[in-house]
């Protein structure tokens, strides 16, 4: 630990040289911009800039590319809050309360809390990275297919009802997500499923298209339905002193940020769609703990602070398997691995020994980068918040345009744009029936991974189902899932004789 601190100090020496500070700043700015634009994410951003780093030394190159990655986590929430368009997969949940806050004229505090929460989570996450990286990486290896499957089942059941609207409707949406997730190449046999001969459907339905469609386009459509008077009458112009969060906001958020950081860091170590699960879990946790769960969905600041911190912490945690094991657990770290290789650095067990100046230089630059991002993002808050001053009849078509260009940039695919528009229509219709989009997205993310893990486990065990119960970690998750399902029924049974069963939970407010 002491040795680590010493080397970290050396790392700061490397990271604070003028050129490296410049590359860190560049990465942070590019990352923020990429995060703000819907569709285009850190993966595309890093890939585009890799050739530009050929002439740099490896440390500077990785400092800049890593900056893009965590910078995107800062910017991703901006369009979620202002326009209900999730900028990245990790900021879907932020739409729920962030957008409500903005509609109430509190876009400023929501944006500022995102930046502060990201900073706190990023800084704490880095401490975790420095102190515990090797043991945590070894713990992550304990997750094989069986453990992974049980974790996914747990996540699916527990997080489906994330918004808490109606368990039945949420499960229906989550199931639709699962079904959509089966489209494409069968992950085990390689056969095409539900593609109806279409090449574009072979790779399945793009998550970002569904997310932007359900949330962003759906919201635009439901605005279109309103009369002109109602539309422009609703523009709430934020006043200057309301641009930044009040002390009360900060007091409410700080614990949510810390909890979000913890959840995000833990989930970030698991391979796969960590940021999505982390944000859902953080939101769920905040809602459960809150004394005012009815505020969630109506613009609760904790509902923004928790998930936004969680996705940044998950992003820092994702560097652990990359640096310590040499294995990327998620697509953005996969492309960072590629960038490292192209610069002649092989991440993995030998990296800390072989290129300590790079390892510690990059870690130190992440501290600095997080600070730069905070300073960079706070002044943007008034600017972004003022976007809402634009009349809706002008803003809404612009949002559609933004979504379409952003969507195209993800895979250079026109087909994805149609998928997005289709899900825009579905989102609009679903909203009328008070069906939520978030559970569908969860099903879409977890479904294919759950299926692969399930079939892998059974292939390894030659079809023996006891493999899920024989492994302690897997068993623990399955038992937790069972408890989660049984306890409410049990409670209901206890209440029914005495109270007539009418008093389960607070009555839903409109």
């Amino acid at each position: 630990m002491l040795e680590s601190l010493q080397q970290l100090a050396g790392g700061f020496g490397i990271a604070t040289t003028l050129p490296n500070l410049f590359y860190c700043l560049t990465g942070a700015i590019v990352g923020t911009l990429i995060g703000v634009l819907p569709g285009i994410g850190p993966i595309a951003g890093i890939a585009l800039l890799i050739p530009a780093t050929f002439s740099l030394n490896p440390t500077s190159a990785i400092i800049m590319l890593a900056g893009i990655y965590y910078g995107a986590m800062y910017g991703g929430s901006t369009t979620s809050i202002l326009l209900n368009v999730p900028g990245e997969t990790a900021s879907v949940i932020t739409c729920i309360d962030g957008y409500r806050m903005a509609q109430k004229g509190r876009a400023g505090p929501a944006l500022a809390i995102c930046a502060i929460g990201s900073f706190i989570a990023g800084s704490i996450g880095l401490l975790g990275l420095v102190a515990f990286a090797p043991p945590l990486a070894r713990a992550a290896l304990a997750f094989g297919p069986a453990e992974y499957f049980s974790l996914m089942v747990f996540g699916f059941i527990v997080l489906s009802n994330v918004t808490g609207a109606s368990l039945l409707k949420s499960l229906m949406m989550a199931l639709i997500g699962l079904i959509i997730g089966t489209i494409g190449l069968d992950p085990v046999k390689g056969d095409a499923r539900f593609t109806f001969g279409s090449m574009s459907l072979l790779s399945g339905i793009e998550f970002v298209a569904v997310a932007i469609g359900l949330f962003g386009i759906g919201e635009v459509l439901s605005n279109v339905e309103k009369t002109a008077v109602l539309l422009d009458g609703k523009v709430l112009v934020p006043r200057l002193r309301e641009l930044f969060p009040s002390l009360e906001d900060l007091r409410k958020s700080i614990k949510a940020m810390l909890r979000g950081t913890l959840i995000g860091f833990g989930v970030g170590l698991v391979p796969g769609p960590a940021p999505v699960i982390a944000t859902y879990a953080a939101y769920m946790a905040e809602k459960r703990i809150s004394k005012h769960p009815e505020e969630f969905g109506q613009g609760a600041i904790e509902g923004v602070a928790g998930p936004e911190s969680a996705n940044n912490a998950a992003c820092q945690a994702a560097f652990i398997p990359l640096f310590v094991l040499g294995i990327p657990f998620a697509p953005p770290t996969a492309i960072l691995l590629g960038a490292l290789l192209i610069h002649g650095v092989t991440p993995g067990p030998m990296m800390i020994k072989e290129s300590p100046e790079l390892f510690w230089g990059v870690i130190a630059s992440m501290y600095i980068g997080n600070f730069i991002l905070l300073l960079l993002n706070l002044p943007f808050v008034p600017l972004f918040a003022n976007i809402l001053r634009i009349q809706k009849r002008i803003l809404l078509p612009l949002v559609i345009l933004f979504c379409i260009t952003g969507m195209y940039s993800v895979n250079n695919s026109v087909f994805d744009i149609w998928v997005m528009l289709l899900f825009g229509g579905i989102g609009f219709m679903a909203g009328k029936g008070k069906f939520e989009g978030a559970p569908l997205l969860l099903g879409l993310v977890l479904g294919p991974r759950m299926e692969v893990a399930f079939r892998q486990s059974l292939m390894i065990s030659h079809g023996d189902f006891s493999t899920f119960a024989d492994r302690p970690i897997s068993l623990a998750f399955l038992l937790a899932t069972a408890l989660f399902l049984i306890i409410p029924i049990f409670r209901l049974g206890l209440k029914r004789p005495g109270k007539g069963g009418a008093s389960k939970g607070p009555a839903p407010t409109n």
Partner: protein
Amino acid sequence: MLKRLSAILFVFFVAGSIPVHAADFPTKEVQVIIPWAAGGATDLIFRALGATAGKYLNKAVVVVNRPGGGGAVGYTDGMKAKPDGYMLTAAVTPLCILPHQTATAFTYKDFEPILNVVSDPSMLLVRSDAPWKDLREFVDYAKKNPDMITVGNSGAGGGVHLVALAFENAAGIKLNHIPFSGGGPSVTALLGGHVNAVSVTPPEGIPQIKAGQLKIMALFADKRLAMFPDVPTVKDQGINFSMGMWRGLAAPKGTPQDVIRKLNESFKKAMDDPEFQAKAKEMSVILSYLGSKDFGALMAKDDEFFGKLIKEMKK
């Protein structure tokens, strides 16, 4: 009105299809379709090569990622591109695998080979603490316990999966193949002890071998790896089998031969450029130049090989 329109269209198409000549090729930037997402081995190699080739073509080489369908989307786009040499496609082993697996619009015959750039050997990796000391013990164990050794691969029906299947046939053993979503996850599962072996191509697994966590159980190459000269190939050990993954460049069918020649020359020069050589060495890929004719022959050979193998697998 209709007549005039068709006249305009006629002029437009005829003018548009006047053949390009190599003398003034290229007059604009050359695009290379990568049928996979950014950041994979193919993507990185052609980004590096493209950056260098731009010097010799006097125009920029731009990489375009068209992921989807395990490569099918990108190859369909590449096949449909105008055959003028401005839209090339990275021709990688799956080009000869996909058409046998699903109904694709393309086969390798829809492309004009330009050159091969990289040939990576496939290999089976195990953990350093695995119970088998060498290939003989591994094969003996597999013969006595058919279907018991679990072998991870990067995706069902993908290159390394098929290589492992072909090796089974060559060695007369039966393995239990477990597909993962990519080479990274399969190597992770091996490190965690959830599978007994994995089938990969470099650079996957190289850092873990260097760190002593994994070792090469079987190397399916004609030559030993320069990085690990002590590791014998399976041929050295009496099993006549070698199979690798190739990555080259192709243009749509019908591209003029002089344009192909110009592209071949420029990319060949880029391959020999010390700048690219250094990058390739750092990525631990094995450069292996083949001219357009030889590359075409290699594609034809592997297409037949994988076609047979997949037919057997689907039985």
